[in-house]
């Protein structure tokens, strides 16, 4: 797969970015060998409505990368009346990677650090008003909160995707509270100048 194609994978605007598609696909393959279409369906089921964040081609692109990295193997399986399909399985290295991933306790980097540096940089260089940046960010996160709410209301009670949504919402709550603190700090900083 040429690099250009990989780079063209659009990041979802909604913010539920999946950085771990590789690992999730590997773990699905650890369960049983499977083909691209089925893997995509299983992934979608687990993500529920958040699966929209998954670009249609992402599963296939990722499988290609995994293949190049030697983490998956595949064999061609013939079908009646249809073209052959590739059935993927896990290589020994792939299996190792899955277990490393499951035990790995690193947590996705929280938004505060990056955003904080952005505000500090904006203020120091006089490039932008940090208070305005905070307002913009708050607006964006509130829109995400509303989107998560829309999704949550469409989910049946007790669904596994509902649990994921709860995490999304709790994270947004925390971020919005912190933004409130940022807004106050930079408003005061402006008054001190």
């Amino acid at each position, binding site marked *: 797969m040429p690099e250009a194609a990989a780079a063209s994978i659009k990041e979802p605007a909604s913010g539920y970015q999946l950085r771990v598609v590789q690992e999730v696909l590997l773990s699905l393959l650890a369960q049983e060998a499977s083909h691209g279409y089925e893997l995509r369906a299983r992934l979608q089921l687990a993500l529920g409505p958040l699966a929209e964040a998954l670009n249609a081609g992402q599963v296939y692109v990722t499988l290609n990368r995994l293949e190049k990295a030697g983490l998956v193997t595949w064999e061609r399986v013939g079908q009646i009346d249809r073209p052959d399909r590739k059935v993927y399985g896990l290589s020994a290295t792939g299996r190792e990677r899955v277990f490393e991933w499951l035990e790995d306790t690193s947590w996705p980097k929280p938004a505060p650090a990056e955003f904080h540096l952005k505000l500090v940089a904006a203020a120091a260089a006089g490039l932008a008003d940090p208070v305005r940046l905070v307002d913009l960010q708050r*607006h964006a996160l509130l829109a995400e909160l*509303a989107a998560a*709410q*829309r999704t*949550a*209301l469409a989910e049946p009670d007790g669904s596994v995707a509902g649990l994921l949504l709860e995490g999304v*919402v709790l994270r947004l709550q925390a971020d919005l*509270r912190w933004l*409130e603190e940022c807004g*106050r700090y930079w408003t005061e900083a402006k008054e001190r100048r």
Partner: protein
Amino acid sequence: MSAIESTERAGSVLRTHALEKEYGEGEGLVRALDGVELEVSGGETVAVMGPSGCGKSTLLHLLGGLERPSAGEVWLAGARVDRLSEKALARLRRRAIGFVFQAFHLMDELTALENVELPALLAGRSPRAARRRAAVLLEQVGLADRGEHLPSGLSGGQRQRVAIARALSNEPLVVLADEPTATSIRRRRSTCSGSSTAFARRGRR
């Protein structure tokens, strides 16, 4: 709007004593507030009226903990709040105070219902509970059939009522409204150029 129009008297919910606020210093000193005594009881609506620049918004900001007074006291539900830490003030604003700002600050891309339910979601209510509550509030302000409308599809007065419903979302002790000049809060429109209103809900505690 029973919470708003109730005339039931309860104890003092919001109170100030000798409240002062000054901006600037020396030649540029501006005394925005000078010895304000205010008492709002549960269920009572108080409108503060006066010409532009007379300190109405400043008073509202002090009452709501958005700014700190230069001197004097602000009491909410029996507790002094003007000296709280920033963190405690933020919590207080989230839980006990509803704001209706001049510009309403509704989000254009969200429906009326979605705008109203945001504070409840932020306060940790479940998706369905927040939605139910938002629907009830919209009904209370007479906009039950406008829930799915975007702000752009509502009149100015309707947008204001959405902002009021949103301010009531977390059952605040008091609602502070800046320039509620439309007729929705009080039917009697003031002839002054502006007003600020504080209404205290019937005592919750």
